[in-house]
């Protein structure tokens, strides 16, 4: 399976791109070229050079180091948000499918529609408006938005599986809905979930960037790609590298993840579609 994946150029490229940043994030825990919590104002606006590989920002901090630590934030936010979405969405979806047409199903699906009616950014704005801006609230906001995505996906996929004979024979073997969902449904929708997971992951990174950009995301001193953009935007006209590098980082990571997602999608099943069932 994994071998097959790496036979696909899209996956390989995507994997390399995404992994580069994940790695950078991990390394940043132990080492960065320069500390990111020390400001060195006299040394500000250095262009990329041998010392500061990507130059320094308006407070003289090393942009390369900032990017490494920023990757940490962006990835953490996205991962946890996807986790929330899967952790809550999938069980809900499976439950709805197992009890199709029941009140439970109805409630879950209507609930989904309701959440879907709130654009992700709007949820974020509400939450941050209530609890104040922070990376955690950004995670929650993006996570909430992810729940219905996974609920719908898993319900749709599960429904088609419930009509299959092997589920029927499992029922003949006296297995209950929970056990069947765990043993027979979940393993068979895993592919879908992985694909959707990568996609939501990349969306999460974009969302985090957007939130931090309007100041509703990660707060200083925690570096975040989105905030690096926000901080540097007024200087973009005379120090473009400040805005260019974080932007590029976002684009490349998201691009990488999407490439992986699409490759996996084709690998698992060419007929999977994104979006609502």
């Amino acid at each position, binding site marked *: 399976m994994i071998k097959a994946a790496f036979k696909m150029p899209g996956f390989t490229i995507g994997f390399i791109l995404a992994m580069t940043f994940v790695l950078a994030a991990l390394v940043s825990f132990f080492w960065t070229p320069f500390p990111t919590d020390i400001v060195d104002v006299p040394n500000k606006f250095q262009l990329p050079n041998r010392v500061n590989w990507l130059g320094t920002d308006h407070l003289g901090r090393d942009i390369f180091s900032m990017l490494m630590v920023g990757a940490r934030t962006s990835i953490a936010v996205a991962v946890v948000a996807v986790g929330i979405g899967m952790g809550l969405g999938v069980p809900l979806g499976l439950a709805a499918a197992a009890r199709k047409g029941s009140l439970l199903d109805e409630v879950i699906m209507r609930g989904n529609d309701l959440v879907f009616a709130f654009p992700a950014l709007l949820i974020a704005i509400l939450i941050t408006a209530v609890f104040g801006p922070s990376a955690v609230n950004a995670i929650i906001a993006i996570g909430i938005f992810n729940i219905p995505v996974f609920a719908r996906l898993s319900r749709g996929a599960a429904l088609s599986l419930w009509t299959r004979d092997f589920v029927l*024979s499992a029922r003949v073997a*006296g297995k209950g809905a929970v056990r069947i969902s765990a*043993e027979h449904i979940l393993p068979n929708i895993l592919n879908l979930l992985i694909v959707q997971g990568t996609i939501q992951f990349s969306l999460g990174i974009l969302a985090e960037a957007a939130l931090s950009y309007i100041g509703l995301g990660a707060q200083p001193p925690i570096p975040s790609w989105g905030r690096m953009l926000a901080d540097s935007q007024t200087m973009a006209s005379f120090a473009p590298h400040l805005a260019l590098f974080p932007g590029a980082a976002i684009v490349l990571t998201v691009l990488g993840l999407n490439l992986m997602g699409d490759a996996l999608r084709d690998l698992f099943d060419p007929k999977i579609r994104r979006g609502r069932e």
Partner: protein
Amino acid sequence: MTLLQIKNLNLSIGDTEILRDVSLTAEAGKIVAVIGESGSGKSMTAYCINQLLPRGAQVSGQVMFNGQDMLQISERELCGIRGQDIGMVFQEPMTALNPVQTIGAQVAETVLIHGAASKAEALKIARETLNRVGLPEAEFPLGRYPHELSGGQRQRVVIALAIALRPKLLIADEPTTALDVTTQAQILELLQKLVREDGMALLLISHDLGVVANVADNIAIMRRGEIVESGPVKQVFAEMNHEYTRALFAASNHVPERNAEAAEMPILKVSGLVRDYVLPRKTAFGVPPKLRAVNDVSFEVKRGESLGLVGESGCGKSTLTRAILGLDVVQSGLIEIDGQAVTAGHKVPRELRRKMQVVFQDPYGSFNPRHKVAKLVAEPFHLLDDAPKGTARRQAVEKTLIEVGMLTQDADKYIHEFSGGQRQRIAIARALIIKPELIILDEAVSALDVSIRAQILDLLAELSDRLGLSYLFISHDLSVVRAITDRVMVMKSGKIVETGETEAVFNTPKHHYTKALIDAAPVLENVR
């Protein structure tokens, strides 16, 4: 005169060889049938004629149609011929029509594409053609959508759009396989009529000897991409030069050895069973209407007996099965398993369930692709309170696998590594493993090629003799039911219309529906 002449046709897709040196002719006003089991390349032969081959297909040889070689002419010319001179009918009427277009539009389209008439006339032609195929204006206005029609009716529409321009050649690829016997008979009749009236050639592709035996003039028998024997039907059936022909023929009406005698004590007794479905509301707040899928059904299965249940799709046989298996709760009636009663409104308790197991039709859909055979076969152990664990469990699995003619090491393989026949054996193993007394076979052999089907039937017979199993054998295929059952029930729209000794029912059917079924069923004997 010969309308179509295929000479030494070779086809390979990618690097797998599909057809080898196939030669075939079709004449106007005649029906030529191509017979073969799945993977024999019979359909591909058809697609070579109008060049609707999948990507990466290389063809060589000659397909002379109406004086020109279809392999040589351009795509544009081909488009001119398709629909105009060559019509085609497919196996799956459910998906062969565009769901978002009216049947009228789709039939008229054939005419319009070839600029044969103005829009108005095209619709007129569409109307006439639909009338011809037995869809009169009254019930079937042009504005109908496919989803509003039954399978048989849709197949008629497909035929209509194939013959709208009265093509010289009509290719029918398994046109009746997806249909009930009675409908099948009607469709075959229709095709014959059209051939007579338009004097067109019909290339009829099928896996069922019985179907073609009565309609075809000439026949070609294919195996693994080759034509092993061909010629006029009577002659081929009379001579049977090739051993495959004989094997095929034998398998088609194979009757397994059975010498199990039924005890008096019934293992399953069903009385006054009723199962209703709640349909969606008609009005926003009105009381939702009910559909009575099983209507006051009573019967019993004796120990060691094999009871058949025949009926066409939608007659309620699967609903009955589900009720007996305890998957659904019934509205009224009584189910007695081994003497213990389960009253309506209650689920069948585990200790009774373990006396019954089931084998489903689809050898592909009935296994979880992510589990190994060992796990799949062992699943019913869930019904036992003292299910064997560890090596004991493993041994049980291996033992049963051997019983159904598989190998012990198969336990460690995934299901996709097996053929349809093998899967059905594994399915039977899964049913056997907890030593049930009754096995419900729901169309268990319907999806198999005749030769494989014969083997499975033998296996079933042998098992019932050795283990004293009882079968409830559900099928739409009368010949199979006749071959394997002691008694048979005929079900129609939720009711049992006739019950009796299998032979008696088949020889002297009492209920008119039973008669209809038996008449419709294609039988090989009368060819001889």
